[in-house]
């Protein structure tokens, strides 16, 4: 229940953050009135609006697959939150297999996007879905390989175990290359700018989601913002010590606040990039994954292996 509740509130917070951060960066303030401080109640209004919107399923579409697709995209992200430790004892469960479970379950949402694109029976949607799926699988590999390097250091797959192993130092200091790869790959997995070709509104009209309206569309958005929280949280656990604070003053503040702070900072960074970088081209994207990131990650793994055995 707690996990579900968290899943519903955290993405909204991130969505709000995105609106406001972008608004201030671009000097386009947008709705600032509702509810007082920076228009926070606008979010609730948006949610209510989404439910009230008419739900259109195009006549050409395959209605069952069309309806199932948002669920297939979103549910894996809910399942990820079960294993993320937000404090020393604050987690829903501690699977031995931890990070591998996260990586395996995110792979499912690729099928959801392909389902959405195909079921819409729209050319733009199908192209968008294929672009999205090609991008997701290309960047899943760097994500997996960067995680392997962390697992090698910690000697365990459990996310709680990985957090505990960073008691003395955070892995960002020993795995800077891994951290870089992980963040870039996360951005691509989230199809966030500068990796947003699959939903490029100026080229293919939001890709796989062209035909979606109302609540079904809202679920895709929820999955995107839930994804930002999830990937920020995983990156914090793997590289920034999770709920571990910095030395000396670390004990004064509970782990939950450390974790939330790190997740918030990473999420801010992800949003910031949207305001900063233009979109890459589709071929540059695939090339970058296969020619740069994957060989780099493989080299990182081998170097980590040799160094670790020699040091021991």
């Amino acid at each position: 229940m707690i996990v579900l509740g968290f899943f519903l509130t955290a993405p909204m917070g991130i969505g709000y953050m995105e609106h406001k951060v972008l608004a201030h960066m671009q000097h386009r303030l947008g709705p600032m009135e509702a509810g007082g401080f920076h228009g926070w109640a606008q979010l609730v209004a948006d949610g209510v609006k989404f439910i009230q919107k008419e739900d259109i399923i195009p006549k050409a579409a395959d209605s069952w697959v069309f309806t199932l697709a948002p669920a297939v995209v979103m549910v894996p992200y809910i399942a990820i939150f079960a294993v993320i430790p937000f404090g020393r004892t604050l987690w829903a469960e501690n699977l031995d297999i931890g990070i591998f479970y996260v990586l395996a379950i995110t792979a499912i949402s690729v099928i959801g996007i392909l389902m959405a694109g195909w079921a819409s029976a729209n050319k733009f949607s199908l192209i968008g879905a294929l672009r999205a799926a090609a991008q997701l699988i290309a960047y899943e590999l760097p994500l997996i390989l960067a995680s392997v390097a962390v697992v090698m250091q910690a000697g365990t797959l459990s996310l709680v175990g990985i957090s505990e192993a960073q008691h003395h130092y955070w892995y960002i200091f020993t795995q800077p290359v891994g951290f870089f790869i992980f963040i870039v790959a996360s951005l691509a997995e989230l199809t966030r700018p500068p990796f947003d070709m699959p939903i490029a509104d100026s080229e293919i009209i939001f890709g796989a989601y062209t035909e979606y309206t109302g609540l079904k569309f809202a679920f895709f958005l929820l999955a995107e913002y839930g994804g930002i929280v999830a990937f920020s949280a995983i990156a914090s656990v793997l590289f920034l010590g999770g709920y571990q604070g910095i030395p000396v003053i670390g004990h004064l503040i509970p782990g939950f606040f450390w974790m939330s702070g790190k997740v918030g900072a990473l999420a801010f960074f992800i949003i910031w990039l949207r305001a900063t970088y233009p979109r890459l081209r589709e071929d540059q994207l695939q090339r970058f994954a296969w020619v740069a990131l994957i060989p780099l990650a493989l080299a990182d793994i081998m170097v980590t292996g040799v160094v670790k055995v020699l040091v021991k």
Partner: protein
Amino acid sequence: MSETYYQSYGIVVALLIGGVGLVAVAFGAARVVAPRRQLPEKLTTYECGIDPVGEGWSQSQIRYYIYAFLFVIFDVESVFLFPWATTFERLGMQAVVEMGIFVFILALGLLYAYRKKVLEWV
């Protein structure tokens, strides 16, 4: 056989059911609340306002196929990396060399694909 193993997966299953239930309830609510006025124009496929040309389910470039294939192969590789990453320290340099050979052979494949320019686009 530990009880905690089944308990923790019980939570996963409960969460999946909860997630699906959430979606179902939300869709049900939307069905009740949202207006339904279906006009033929509304139900056509969106193509920038003009009438749709040809069929929606048309095929596009074969380009992506090679990436999917490469992905399957490297995914299988990464699956071997995880059990290795948790144990290589215990097994010592021998295990690192074993994995080194494995990764090297696959990296050769990637290099081959690169030299044959199938990773190129334009």
